[in-house]
Protein backbone atom coordinates (compact mmCIF):
# COMPACT_ATOMS: atom_id res chain seq x y z
CA UNK A 1 0.00 0.00 0.00
CA UNK A 2 1.39 3.35 -0.99
CA UNK A 3 1.05 6.40 1.27
CA UNK A 4 -2.38 7.98 1.05
CA UNK A 5 -2.08 11.74 1.24
CA UNK A 6 -5.09 13.28 -0.50
CA UNK A 7 -7.22 10.25 0.31
CA UNK A 8 -6.07 9.79 3.90
CA UNK A 9 -9.53 10.60 5.25
CA UNK A 10 -11.47 8.94 2.44
CA UNK A 11 -14.21 6.61 3.59
CA UNK A 12 -16.35 4.30 1.53
CA UNK A 13 -19.67 5.74 2.62
CA UNK A 14 -19.37 9.30 3.83
CA UNK A 15 -17.65 12.66 3.83
CA UNK A 16 -14.82 13.44 6.26
CA UNK A 17 -15.99 15.99 8.81
CA UNK A 18 -14.21 19.16 9.85
CA UNK A 19 -13.16 17.44 13.10
CA UNK A 20 -11.75 14.46 11.24
CA UNK A 21 -9.86 16.72 8.87
CA UNK A 22 -8.40 18.63 11.82
CA UNK A 23 -7.46 15.44 13.61
CA UNK A 24 -5.41 14.42 10.61
CA UNK A 25 -3.49 17.70 10.78
CA UNK A 26 -5.93 19.74 8.73
CA UNK A 27 -5.78 23.55 8.97
CA UNK A 28 -2.37 23.31 10.65
CA UNK A 29 -0.65 24.49 7.49
CA UNK A 30 -2.69 27.68 7.19
CA UNK A 31 -2.53 28.34 10.96
CA UNK A 32 1.24 28.02 10.92
CA UNK A 33 1.58 30.03 7.72
CA UNK A 34 -0.49 32.94 9.00
CA UNK A 35 1.75 33.08 12.08
CA UNK A 36 5.20 32.46 10.73
CA UNK A 37 5.36 32.66 6.96
CA UNK A 38 5.11 35.47 4.49
CA UNK A 39 3.22 35.04 1.23
CA UNK A 40 6.61 34.96 -0.49
CA UNK A 41 7.70 32.01 1.67
CA UNK A 42 4.65 30.07 0.54
CA UNK A 43 5.28 30.84 -3.12
CA UNK A 44 8.86 29.59 -2.70
CA UNK A 45 7.80 26.35 -1.05
CA UNK A 46 5.20 25.64 -3.72
CA UNK A 47 7.72 26.35 -6.47
CA UNK A 48 10.33 24.15 -4.85
CA UNK A 49 7.87 21.29 -4.45
CA UNK A 50 7.51 20.96 -8.25
CA UNK A 51 3.74 20.83 -7.88
CA UNK A 52 2.42 20.80 -11.44
CA UNK A 53 -1.20 21.70 -12.25
CA UNK A 54 -3.46 18.65 -12.15
CA UNK A 55 -6.12 20.12 -14.45
CA UNK A 56 -4.45 18.98 -17.65
CA UNK A 57 -1.85 21.57 -18.60
CA UNK A 58 0.78 20.71 -15.94
CA UNK A 59 1.85 24.30 -15.32
CA UNK A 60 3.96 24.79 -12.12
CA UNK A 61 1.58 26.08 -9.45
CA UNK A 62 4.25 28.07 -7.60
CA UNK A 63 5.30 29.85 -10.75
CA UNK A 64 1.72 30.76 -11.60
CA UNK A 65 1.12 32.40 -8.23
CA UNK A 66 4.43 34.25 -8.51
CA UNK A 67 3.25 35.98 -11.67
CA UNK A 68 0.84 37.99 -9.53
CA UNK A 69 3.11 40.96 -9.00
CA UNK A 70 3.48 42.52 -5.59
CA UNK A 71 1.99 45.83 -6.63
CA UNK A 72 -0.90 44.24 -8.52
CA UNK A 73 -4.28 45.80 -7.73
CA UNK A 74 -6.94 44.43 -5.38
CA UNK A 75 -9.27 42.60 -5.07
CA UNK A 76 -7.45 39.52 -6.26
CA UNK A 77 -9.17 36.23 -6.89
CA UNK A 78 -8.41 32.55 -6.50
CA UNK A 79 -10.61 30.32 -8.60
CA UNK A 80 -10.92 26.63 -8.00
CA UNK A 81 -11.61 24.90 -11.29
CA UNK A 82 -14.11 22.15 -10.44
CA UNK A 83 -15.62 22.06 -13.91
CA UNK A 84 -14.13 18.63 -14.62
CA UNK A 85 -15.80 18.04 -17.96
CA UNK A 86 -12.91 16.20 -19.60
CA UNK A 87 -14.43 12.82 -20.56
CA UNK A 88 -13.14 10.06 -18.32
CA UNK A 89 -12.21 12.41 -15.49
CA UNK A 90 -13.99 12.24 -12.12
CA UNK A 91 -11.21 12.65 -9.55
CA UNK A 92 -12.27 16.15 -8.49
CA UNK A 93 -15.74 14.91 -7.65
CA UNK A 94 -14.28 12.08 -5.57
CA UNK A 95 -11.88 14.46 -3.80
CA UNK A 96 -14.65 16.88 -2.86
CA UNK A 97 -16.85 14.05 -1.61
CA UNK A 98 -13.98 12.56 0.39
CA UNK A 99 -12.51 15.53 2.23
CA UNK A 100 -13.96 18.95 1.34
CA UNK A 101 -11.96 20.88 3.96
CA UNK A 102 -8.72 19.89 2.26
CA UNK A 103 -9.88 21.87 -0.77
CA UNK A 104 -10.98 24.79 1.42
CA UNK A 105 -7.57 24.89 3.12
CA UNK A 106 -5.85 24.60 -0.27
CA UNK A 107 -7.76 27.65 -1.47
CA UNK A 108 -6.84 29.53 1.69
CA UNK A 109 -3.18 28.79 1.08
CA UNK A 110 -3.29 29.77 -2.59
CA UNK A 111 -5.23 32.84 -1.54
CA UNK A 112 -2.69 33.84 1.09
CA UNK A 113 0.20 33.25 -1.34
CA UNK A 114 -1.42 35.49 -3.95
CA UNK A 115 -2.73 37.94 -1.32
CA UNK A 116 -6.23 37.32 -2.64
CA UNK A 117 -9.32 37.96 -0.58
CA UNK A 118 -11.93 36.18 -2.61
CA UNK A 119 -12.19 32.54 -3.63
CA UNK A 120 -14.66 31.11 -6.12
CA UNK A 121 -15.32 27.43 -6.78
CA UNK A 122 -16.54 27.02 -10.36
CA UNK A 123 -18.44 23.76 -10.50
CA UNK A 124 -20.30 21.86 -13.22
CA UNK A 125 -24.07 21.42 -12.75
CA UNK A 126 -23.79 17.63 -12.76
CA UNK A 127 -21.96 17.95 -9.44
CA UNK A 128 -24.87 19.51 -7.55
CA UNK A 129 -24.22 17.24 -4.57
CA UNK A 130 -20.61 18.33 -4.38
CA UNK A 131 -21.71 21.99 -4.64
CA UNK A 132 -24.05 21.54 -1.67
CA UNK A 133 -21.41 19.75 0.37
CA UNK A 134 -19.01 22.60 -0.27
CA UNK A 135 -21.53 25.29 0.66
CA UNK A 136 -22.28 23.51 3.91
CA UNK A 137 -18.63 22.92 4.81
CA UNK A 138 -17.64 26.48 3.87
CA UNK A 139 -20.23 27.59 6.43
CA UNK A 140 -18.67 25.35 9.06
CA UNK A 141 -15.19 26.63 8.23
CA UNK A 142 -16.48 30.19 8.69
CA UNK A 143 -17.93 29.31 12.09
CA UNK A 144 -14.61 27.78 13.10
CA UNK A 145 -12.82 30.98 12.13
CA UNK A 146 -10.91 29.61 9.15
CA UNK A 147 -12.74 31.78 6.66
CA UNK A 148 -13.95 35.36 6.90
CA UNK A 149 -12.42 38.52 8.30
CA UNK A 150 -9.08 38.45 10.13
CA UNK A 151 -8.62 34.72 10.00
CA UNK A 152 -7.31 33.25 13.28
CA UNK A 153 -6.54 36.71 14.55
CA UNK A 154 -4.27 37.61 11.62
CA UNK A 155 -4.72 40.53 9.26
CA UNK A 156 -5.67 38.13 6.47
CA UNK A 157 -9.29 37.87 5.25
CA UNK A 158 -10.62 35.39 2.74
CA UNK A 159 -14.07 34.15 1.72
CA UNK A 160 -15.25 31.47 -0.70
CA UNK A 161 -18.31 31.33 -2.97
CA UNK A 162 -19.59 28.40 -4.99
CA UNK A 163 -20.51 29.23 -8.59
CA UNK A 164 -22.66 26.79 -10.54
CA UNK A 165 -22.04 26.53 -14.26
CA UNK A 166 -24.79 26.07 -16.84
CA UNK A 167 -22.74 23.19 -18.24
CA UNK A 168 -20.40 23.28 -21.27
CA UNK A 169 -16.98 21.66 -21.65
CA UNK A 170 -15.26 24.88 -22.75
CA UNK A 171 -16.05 26.46 -19.37
CA UNK A 172 -13.16 24.41 -17.97
CA UNK A 173 -10.69 26.46 -19.98
CA UNK A 174 -9.40 29.25 -17.76
CA UNK A 175 -10.20 32.27 -19.89
CA UNK A 176 -13.58 30.94 -21.03
CA UNK A 177 -14.35 30.34 -17.37
CA UNK A 178 -13.64 34.00 -16.60
CA UNK A 179 -16.16 35.02 -19.25
CA UNK A 180 -18.64 32.51 -17.84
CA UNK A 181 -18.24 34.00 -14.36
CA UNK A 182 -18.79 37.49 -15.71
CA UNK A 183 -22.08 36.39 -17.20
CA UNK A 184 -20.79 36.44 -20.75
CA UNK A 185 -20.88 33.74 -23.38
CA UNK A 186 -17.95 31.53 -22.39
CA UNK A 187 -15.64 31.89 -25.35
CA UNK A 188 -11.93 31.75 -24.56
CA UNK A 189 -9.79 34.90 -24.61
CA UNK A 190 -6.24 34.80 -25.86
CA UNK A 191 -3.59 36.27 -23.58
CA UNK A 192 -2.01 38.72 -23.05
CA UNK A 193 -3.12 39.97 -20.65
CA UNK A 194 -2.73 36.82 -18.58
CA UNK A 195 -5.42 36.16 -15.98
CA UNK A 196 -2.88 36.55 -13.15
CA UNK A 197 -2.48 40.12 -14.36
CA UNK A 198 -6.00 40.95 -15.56
CA UNK A 199 -8.45 38.18 -14.82
CA UNK A 200 -11.91 38.23 -13.30
CA UNK A 201 -13.40 41.73 -13.55
CA UNK A 202 -9.98 42.87 -14.76
CA UNK A 203 -8.31 41.92 -11.49
CA UNK A 204 -5.43 39.44 -10.84
CA UNK A 205 -6.81 35.91 -10.80
CA UNK A 206 -5.14 32.59 -10.05
CA UNK A 207 -7.03 29.53 -11.31
CA UNK A 208 -6.09 26.07 -10.08
CA UNK A 209 -7.59 22.64 -10.40
CA UNK A 210 -9.21 20.96 -7.36
CA UNK A 211 -6.46 18.36 -7.03
CA UNK A 212 -3.67 20.95 -7.33
CA UNK A 213 -5.19 22.94 -4.48
CA UNK A 214 -5.68 19.81 -2.37
CA UNK A 215 -1.92 19.11 -2.55
CA UNK A 216 -1.03 22.51 -1.07
CA UNK A 217 -1.83 21.98 2.64
CA UNK A 218 0.22 18.78 2.64
CA UNK A 219 3.20 20.44 0.97
CA UNK A 220 3.23 23.25 3.48
CA UNK A 221 2.92 20.92 6.43
CA UNK A 222 5.49 18.35 5.35
CA UNK A 223 7.84 20.31 3.13
CA UNK A 224 8.73 20.52 -0.54
CA UNK A 225 11.31 17.74 -0.40
CA UNK A 226 8.82 15.35 1.23
CA UNK A 227 6.41 16.04 -1.62
CA UNK A 228 9.03 15.39 -4.27
CA UNK A 229 10.06 12.16 -2.56
CA UNK A 230 6.53 10.80 -2.78
CA UNK A 231 7.04 10.20 -6.49
CA UNK A 232 8.65 7.03 -7.81
CA UNK A 233 10.45 8.83 -10.61
CA UNK A 234 13.16 11.46 -10.42
CA UNK A 235 11.22 13.99 -12.49
CA UNK A 236 7.89 13.37 -10.78
CA UNK A 237 6.59 14.96 -7.59
CA UNK A 238 3.77 14.03 -5.26
CA UNK A 239 1.05 11.48 -5.50
CA UNK A 240 -1.54 11.48 -8.25
CA UNK A 241 -5.18 10.54 -8.32
CA UNK A 242 -5.44 8.22 -11.31
CA UNK A 243 -9.04 7.72 -12.34
CA UNK A 244 -9.43 4.55 -14.27
CA UNK A 245 -12.44 3.58 -16.40
CA UNK A 246 -13.34 1.35 -19.31
CA UNK A 247 -12.48 -2.31 -19.68
CA UNK A 248 -11.08 -2.94 -16.21
CA UNK A 249 -12.59 -4.88 -13.33
CA UNK A 250 -12.48 -2.06 -10.77
CA UNK A 251 -12.96 1.34 -12.34
CA UNK A 252 -12.39 4.14 -9.85
CA UNK A 253 -9.94 6.62 -8.38
CA UNK A 254 -6.60 5.43 -7.00
CA UNK A 255 -4.07 7.60 -5.22
CA UNK A 256 -0.64 6.33 -6.21
CA UNK A 257 2.84 7.80 -6.34
CA UNK A 258 3.50 9.88 -9.42
CA UNK A 259 5.41 7.71 -11.89
CA UNK A 260 3.78 4.39 -11.08
CA UNK A 261 3.72 2.11 -14.12
CA UNK A 262 0.61 1.96 -16.30
CA UNK A 263 0.65 -1.85 -16.15
CA UNK A 264 0.65 -1.75 -12.36
CA UNK A 265 -2.29 0.66 -12.25
CA UNK A 266 -4.33 -1.58 -14.51
CA UNK A 267 -3.38 -4.96 -13.11
CA UNK A 268 -2.95 -4.35 -9.40
CA UNK A 269 -5.11 -1.39 -8.57
CA UNK A 270 -7.91 -1.44 -11.12
CA UNK A 271 -8.29 -5.20 -10.82
CA UNK A 272 -6.98 -6.17 -14.23
CA UNK A 273 -8.74 -6.33 -17.56
CA UNK A 274 -12.43 -7.19 -17.60
CA UNK A 275 -13.21 -10.80 -18.55
CA UNK A 276 -9.51 -11.50 -18.96
CA UNK A 277 -9.47 -9.42 -22.14
CA UNK A 278 -6.28 -8.10 -23.63
CA UNK A 279 -5.18 -4.47 -23.24
CA UNK A 280 -5.16 -2.75 -26.60
CA UNK A 281 -4.78 0.92 -25.76
CA UNK A 282 -5.74 3.62 -23.32
CA UNK A 283 -6.22 7.33 -23.31
CA UNK A 284 -3.83 8.28 -20.49
CA UNK A 285 -5.36 11.58 -19.43
CA UNK A 286 -8.82 12.28 -20.76
CA UNK A 287 -10.26 12.66 -24.24
CA UNK A 288 -7.72 15.32 -25.25
CA UNK A 289 -4.73 13.01 -25.08
CA UNK A 290 -3.30 10.49 -27.56
CA UNK A 291 -3.93 6.77 -27.40
CA UNK A 292 -1.16 4.91 -25.61
CA UNK A 293 -0.71 1.53 -27.29
CA UNK A 294 0.54 -1.79 -25.95
CA UNK A 295 4.08 -0.63 -26.72
CA UNK A 296 3.86 1.73 -23.72
CA UNK A 297 2.18 -0.70 -21.36
CA UNK A 298 4.91 -0.34 -18.73
CA UNK A 299 5.47 3.41 -19.04
CA UNK A 300 5.88 5.38 -15.77
CA UNK A 301 2.83 7.57 -15.49
CA UNK A 302 4.24 11.01 -14.80
CA UNK A 303 4.16 14.21 -16.82
CA UNK A 304 7.76 13.96 -17.91
CA UNK A 305 7.84 10.32 -19.00
CA UNK A 306 4.74 10.78 -21.12
CA UNK A 307 6.04 13.95 -22.69
CA UNK A 308 9.29 12.21 -23.62
CA UNK A 309 7.28 9.47 -25.29
CA UNK A 310 5.37 12.06 -27.31
CA UNK A 311 2.28 11.87 -25.12
CA UNK A 312 0.54 13.87 -22.40
CA UNK A 313 -0.55 12.81 -18.93
CA UNK A 314 -3.40 15.36 -19.03
CA UNK A 315 -5.71 14.73 -16.10
CA UNK A 316 -4.46 11.13 -15.62
CA UNK A 317 -7.95 9.85 -16.45
CA UNK A 318 -6.99 6.46 -17.83
CA UNK A 319 -9.63 5.09 -20.20
CA UNK A 320 -8.88 1.50 -21.09
CA UNK A 321 -9.77 -0.21 -24.37
CA UNK A 322 -9.52 -3.94 -25.02
CA UNK A 323 -8.82 -5.90 -28.21
CA UNK A 324 -12.52 -6.09 -29.08
CA UNK A 325 -12.98 -2.34 -29.12
CA UNK A 326 -12.84 -0.67 -32.53
CA UNK A 327 -10.41 2.23 -32.38
CA UNK A 328 -12.04 3.94 -35.35
CA UNK A 329 -15.44 3.85 -33.65
CA UNK A 330 -13.89 5.06 -30.37
CA UNK A 331 -12.22 7.96 -32.18
CA UNK A 332 -15.49 8.75 -33.92
CA UNK A 333 -17.20 8.92 -30.53
CA UNK A 334 -14.52 11.29 -29.24
CA UNK A 335 -14.88 13.49 -32.32
CA UNK A 336 -18.64 13.61 -31.81
CA UNK A 337 -17.94 14.91 -28.32
CA UNK A 338 -15.56 17.59 -29.56
CA UNK A 339 -17.80 18.61 -32.45
CA UNK A 340 -20.71 19.08 -30.05
CA UNK A 341 -18.71 20.93 -27.43
CA UNK A 342 -16.72 23.28 -29.70
CA UNK A 343 -17.64 26.77 -28.58
CA UNK A 344 -17.84 27.84 -32.21
CA UNK A 345 -15.73 30.97 -31.83
CA UNK A 346 -13.01 30.25 -34.38
CA UNK A 347 -13.27 28.69 -37.83
CA UNK A 348 -10.55 25.98 -37.77
CA UNK A 349 -12.27 24.33 -34.82
CA UNK A 350 -15.91 25.06 -35.61
CA UNK A 351 -15.58 23.79 -39.18
CA UNK A 352 -12.59 21.49 -38.89
CA UNK A 353 -13.75 19.19 -36.10
CA UNK A 354 -17.07 18.30 -37.81
CA UNK A 355 -15.09 17.71 -41.02
CA UNK A 356 -12.84 15.21 -39.23
CA UNK A 357 -15.88 13.65 -37.63
CA UNK A 358 -17.56 13.24 -40.99
CA UNK A 359 -14.51 11.51 -42.50
CA UNK A 360 -14.29 9.23 -39.49
CA UNK A 361 -18.01 8.43 -39.71
CA UNK A 362 -17.60 7.38 -43.33
CA UNK A 363 -14.62 5.17 -42.54
CA UNK A 364 -16.48 3.49 -39.71
CA UNK A 365 -19.52 2.95 -41.89
CA UNK A 366 -17.69 1.37 -44.80
CA UNK A 367 -17.58 4.44 -47.03
CA UNK A 368 -13.92 5.26 -46.45
CA UNK A 369 -11.34 5.76 -49.18
CA UNK A 370 -7.59 5.58 -48.97
CA UNK A 371 -7.18 9.29 -49.61
CA UNK A 372 -9.09 10.00 -46.39
CA UNK A 373 -5.91 9.26 -44.44
CA UNK A 374 -4.04 12.15 -45.96
CA UNK A 375 -7.15 14.33 -45.71
CA UNK A 376 -7.37 13.56 -41.99
CA UNK A 377 -3.68 14.32 -41.51
CA UNK A 378 -3.90 17.59 -43.41
CA UNK A 379 -7.03 18.77 -41.66
CA UNK A 380 -5.60 17.84 -38.25
CA UNK A 381 -2.71 20.21 -38.86
CA UNK A 382 -5.08 23.13 -39.38
CA UNK A 383 -6.52 22.57 -35.94
CA UNK A 384 -3.25 23.76 -34.45
CA UNK A 385 -3.98 27.29 -35.65
CA UNK A 386 -7.23 27.50 -33.72
CA UNK A 387 -7.89 30.08 -31.03
CA UNK A 388 -7.55 27.90 -27.91
CA UNK A 389 -6.21 24.53 -26.74
CA UNK A 390 -9.55 22.81 -27.32
CA UNK A 391 -8.92 21.99 -30.99
CA UNK A 392 -5.38 20.58 -30.54
CA UNK A 393 -6.95 18.42 -27.83
CA UNK A 394 -9.65 17.30 -30.25
CA UNK A 395 -7.12 16.11 -32.78
CA UNK A 396 -4.99 14.21 -30.27
CA UNK A 397 -7.01 10.96 -30.48
CA UNK A 398 -7.08 11.27 -34.30
CA UNK A 399 -3.32 11.69 -34.39
CA UNK A 400 -2.93 8.69 -32.10
CA UNK A 401 -5.23 6.62 -34.26
CA UNK A 402 -3.31 7.41 -37.44
CA UNK A 403 0.01 6.81 -35.75
CA UNK A 404 -0.60 3.55 -33.94
CA UNK A 405 -3.69 2.05 -35.52
CA UNK A 406 -3.38 2.86 -39.19
CA UNK A 407 -3.82 -0.84 -39.98
CA UNK A 408 -7.23 -0.78 -38.28
CA UNK A 409 -8.25 2.25 -40.31
CA UNK A 410 -7.04 0.55 -43.49
CA UNK A 411 -8.94 -2.63 -42.63
CA UNK A 412 -12.15 -0.56 -42.50
CA UNK A 413 -11.38 0.99 -45.85
CA UNK A 414 -10.42 -2.26 -47.61
CA UNK A 415 -13.26 -4.35 -46.23
CA UNK A 416 -15.73 -1.49 -46.69
CA UNK A 417 -17.15 -2.16 -43.24
CA UNK A 418 -16.17 -2.13 -39.59
CA UNK A 419 -14.25 -5.38 -38.99
CA UNK A 420 -15.41 -5.35 -35.37
CA UNK A 421 -19.06 -5.47 -36.31
CA UNK A 422 -18.77 -8.81 -38.07
CA UNK A 423 -20.66 -11.66 -36.51
CA UNK A 424 -22.91 -9.77 -34.14
Amino acid at each position, binding site marked *: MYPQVLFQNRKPDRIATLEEYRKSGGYEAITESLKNRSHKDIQEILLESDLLGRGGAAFPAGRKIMTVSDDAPYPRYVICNAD*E*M*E*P*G*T*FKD*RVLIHADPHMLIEGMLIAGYAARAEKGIIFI*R*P*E*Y*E*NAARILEREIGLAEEAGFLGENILGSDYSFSIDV*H*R*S*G*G*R*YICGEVTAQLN*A*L*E*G*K*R*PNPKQPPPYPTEKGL*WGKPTVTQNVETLCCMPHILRNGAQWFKDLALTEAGAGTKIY*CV*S*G*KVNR*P*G*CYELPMGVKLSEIIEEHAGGMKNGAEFKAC*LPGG*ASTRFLSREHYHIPMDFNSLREAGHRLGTA*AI*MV*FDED*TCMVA*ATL*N*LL*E*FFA*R*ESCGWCTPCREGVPYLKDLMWRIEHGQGEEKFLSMLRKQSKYLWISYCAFAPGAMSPVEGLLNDFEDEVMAHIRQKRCPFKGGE
Partner: protein
Amino acid sequence: MLPTEIKESLTRRIETASHPPELAVDVMFAIQDHYGWLTDEAMEEAGAILGMDPLKLEELATFYTFLYREPVGKYVIHLCDSVICWMDGYESLRDHIARKLGIGMGETTPDGLFTLLPVCCIGYCDRSPAMLINKKVYGFLTPEKIDAIFEKLRTEAQSTERGTAEAPHE
Protein backbone atom coordinates in the same frame (compact mmCIF):
# COMPACT_ATOMS: atom_id res chain seq x y z
CA MET B 1 -45.59 36.16 -14.31
CA LEU B 2 -43.12 35.12 -11.65
CA PRO B 3 -44.56 34.86 -8.14
CA THR B 4 -43.43 37.78 -5.99
CA GLU B 5 -41.53 35.56 -3.52
CA ILE B 6 -39.22 34.25 -6.23
CA LYS B 7 -38.76 37.70 -7.71
CA GLU B 8 -38.01 39.27 -4.36
CA SER B 9 -35.57 36.63 -3.24
CA LEU B 10 -33.66 36.93 -6.52
CA THR B 11 -33.68 40.70 -6.34
CA ARG B 12 -32.30 40.55 -2.83
CA ARG B 13 -29.43 38.35 -3.97
CA ILE B 14 -28.66 40.75 -6.82
CA GLU B 15 -28.64 43.73 -4.50
CA THR B 16 -26.02 42.20 -2.25
CA ALA B 17 -23.84 40.87 -5.10
CA SER B 18 -20.71 42.82 -5.94
CA HIS B 19 -21.12 41.84 -9.61
CA PRO B 20 -24.72 40.94 -10.51
CA PRO B 21 -23.84 39.35 -13.91
CA GLU B 22 -22.11 36.58 -11.93
CA LEU B 23 -25.62 35.48 -11.00
CA ALA B 24 -26.95 35.32 -14.57
CA VAL B 25 -26.97 31.52 -14.75
CA ASP B 26 -28.29 31.16 -11.19
CA VAL B 27 -31.18 33.51 -11.92
CA MET B 28 -32.05 31.68 -15.12
CA PHE B 29 -31.91 28.34 -13.29
CA ALA B 30 -34.28 29.65 -10.62
CA ILE B 31 -36.73 31.03 -13.17
CA GLN B 32 -36.48 27.84 -15.23
CA ASP B 33 -37.32 25.82 -12.12
CA HIS B 34 -40.52 27.80 -11.87
CA TYR B 35 -41.68 27.65 -15.49
CA GLY B 36 -40.10 24.31 -16.43
CA TRP B 37 -38.20 26.00 -19.27
CA LEU B 38 -37.11 29.48 -20.32
CA THR B 39 -40.08 31.01 -22.08
CA ASP B 40 -39.78 34.36 -23.86
CA GLU B 41 -41.47 35.93 -20.86
CA ALA B 42 -38.99 34.23 -18.54
CA MET B 43 -36.08 35.67 -20.52
CA GLU B 44 -37.56 39.18 -20.25
CA GLU B 45 -38.04 38.74 -16.52
CA ALA B 46 -34.51 37.42 -16.03
CA GLY B 47 -33.17 40.42 -17.94
CA ALA B 48 -35.18 42.85 -15.81
CA ILE B 49 -34.08 41.24 -12.53
CA LEU B 50 -30.41 41.16 -13.54
CA GLY B 51 -30.42 44.54 -15.25
CA MET B 52 -29.00 42.80 -18.30
CA ASP B 53 -29.96 43.00 -21.95
CA PRO B 54 -32.15 39.93 -22.68
CA LEU B 55 -30.09 39.44 -25.84
CA LYS B 56 -27.00 38.90 -23.70
CA LEU B 57 -28.93 36.32 -21.71
CA GLU B 58 -30.10 34.72 -24.93
CA GLU B 59 -26.43 34.08 -25.76
CA LEU B 60 -26.16 32.11 -22.51
CA ALA B 61 -29.51 30.34 -22.62
CA THR B 62 -28.77 28.97 -26.07
CA PHE B 63 -25.24 27.93 -25.08
CA TYR B 64 -25.54 25.95 -21.87
CA THR B 65 -26.63 22.32 -21.72
CA PHE B 66 -28.85 22.70 -18.67
CA LEU B 67 -30.76 25.80 -19.70
CA TYR B 68 -33.75 24.98 -21.88
CA ARG B 69 -35.02 27.52 -24.35
CA GLU B 70 -37.65 25.06 -25.58
CA PRO B 71 -40.31 23.20 -23.62
CA VAL B 72 -39.13 20.03 -21.89
CA GLY B 73 -40.95 17.33 -19.97
CA LYS B 74 -41.29 17.11 -16.21
CA TYR B 75 -38.35 14.72 -16.21
CA VAL B 76 -35.36 15.54 -18.40
CA ILE B 77 -33.28 12.46 -19.14
CA HIS B 78 -29.68 13.17 -20.05
CA LEU B 79 -28.18 9.92 -21.30
CA CYS B 80 -24.37 9.97 -21.39
CA ASP B 81 -23.02 9.16 -24.85
CA SER B 82 -19.28 9.73 -24.24
CA VAL B 83 -16.68 7.11 -24.85
CA ILE B 84 -16.86 4.98 -21.68
CA CYS B 85 -20.65 4.80 -21.61
CA TRP B 86 -20.61 4.20 -25.36
CA MET B 87 -18.32 1.20 -24.82
CA ASP B 88 -20.59 -0.06 -22.09
CA GLY B 89 -23.77 -0.11 -24.13
CA TYR B 90 -25.01 3.45 -24.65
CA GLU B 91 -26.47 2.66 -28.06
CA SER B 92 -28.64 -0.23 -26.94
CA LEU B 93 -29.83 1.73 -23.89
CA ARG B 94 -30.73 4.65 -26.11
CA ASP B 95 -32.74 2.35 -28.37
CA HIS B 96 -34.39 0.76 -25.36
CA ILE B 97 -35.46 4.12 -23.93
CA ALA B 98 -36.67 5.30 -27.34
CA ARG B 99 -38.81 2.17 -27.70
CA LYS B 100 -40.05 2.30 -24.17
CA LEU B 101 -41.09 5.96 -24.29
CA GLY B 102 -41.93 6.07 -27.99
CA ILE B 103 -39.73 9.11 -28.59
CA GLY B 104 -36.43 9.84 -30.30
CA MET B 105 -33.46 11.87 -29.09
CA GLY B 106 -34.51 15.45 -28.42
CA GLU B 107 -38.21 14.61 -28.12
CA THR B 108 -40.77 14.75 -25.33
CA THR B 109 -43.45 12.18 -24.59
CA PRO B 110 -46.98 13.35 -25.51
CA ASP B 111 -48.01 13.28 -21.83
CA GLY B 112 -45.27 15.83 -21.14
CA LEU B 113 -43.52 13.57 -18.67
CA PHE B 114 -40.16 12.70 -20.25
CA THR B 115 -37.66 14.44 -22.53
CA LEU B 116 -34.70 12.47 -23.85
CA LEU B 117 -31.44 14.32 -24.50
CA PRO B 118 -27.85 13.23 -25.08
CA VAL B 119 -25.15 14.57 -22.80
CA CYS B 120 -21.39 14.28 -22.80
CA CYS B 121 -19.47 12.56 -19.99
CA ILE B 122 -21.14 13.43 -16.69
CA GLY B 123 -18.15 12.39 -14.59
CA TYR B 124 -19.53 9.08 -13.39
CA CYS B 125 -17.52 6.82 -15.72
CA ASP B 126 -16.82 4.56 -12.74
CA ARG B 127 -20.54 3.74 -12.80
CA SER B 128 -21.08 3.52 -16.55
CA PRO B 129 -23.35 3.43 -18.38
CA ALA B 130 -24.87 6.41 -16.64
CA MET B 131 -27.56 9.05 -17.05
CA LEU B 132 -29.06 12.00 -15.24
CA ILE B 133 -32.74 12.62 -14.66
CA ASN B 134 -33.36 16.17 -13.48
CA LYS B 135 -29.64 16.22 -12.59
CA LYS B 136 -29.88 13.18 -10.36
CA VAL B 137 -27.37 10.47 -11.29
CA TYR B 138 -28.24 6.88 -12.14
CA GLY B 139 -25.37 4.49 -12.84
CA PHE B 140 -24.67 0.89 -13.86
CA LEU B 141 -27.74 1.10 -16.08
CA THR B 142 -29.49 -1.92 -17.55
CA PRO B 143 -32.79 -1.98 -19.48
CA GLU B 144 -34.50 -3.48 -16.40
CA LYS B 145 -33.14 -0.78 -14.14
CA ILE B 146 -34.30 1.93 -16.52
CA ASP B 147 -37.80 0.43 -16.68
CA ALA B 148 -38.00 0.45 -12.89
CA ILE B 149 -36.81 4.08 -12.69
CA PHE B 150 -39.42 5.20 -15.25
CA GLU B 151 -42.10 3.29 -13.39
CA LYS B 152 -41.18 4.97 -10.13
CA LEU B 153 -41.16 8.41 -11.70
CA ARG B 154 -44.53 7.82 -13.33
CA THR B 155 -46.04 6.95 -9.97
CA GLU B 156 -44.32 9.90 -8.34
CA ALA B 157 -45.66 12.24 -11.03
CA GLN B 158 -49.20 11.04 -10.39
CA SER B 159 -48.97 11.73 -6.69
CA THR B 160 -47.14 15.05 -6.77
CA GLU B 161 -48.06 18.30 -8.35
CA ARG B 162 -46.16 19.89 -11.15
CA GLY B 163 -43.22 22.05 -10.15
CA THR B 164 -42.21 20.08 -7.09
CA ALA B 165 -39.52 18.11 -8.87
CA GLU B 166 -37.32 16.10 -6.59
CA ALA B 167 -34.13 17.76 -5.42
CA PRO B 168 -31.03 16.25 -7.00
CA HIS B 169 -28.98 13.95 -4.84
CA GLU B 170 -26.69 11.02 -5.34
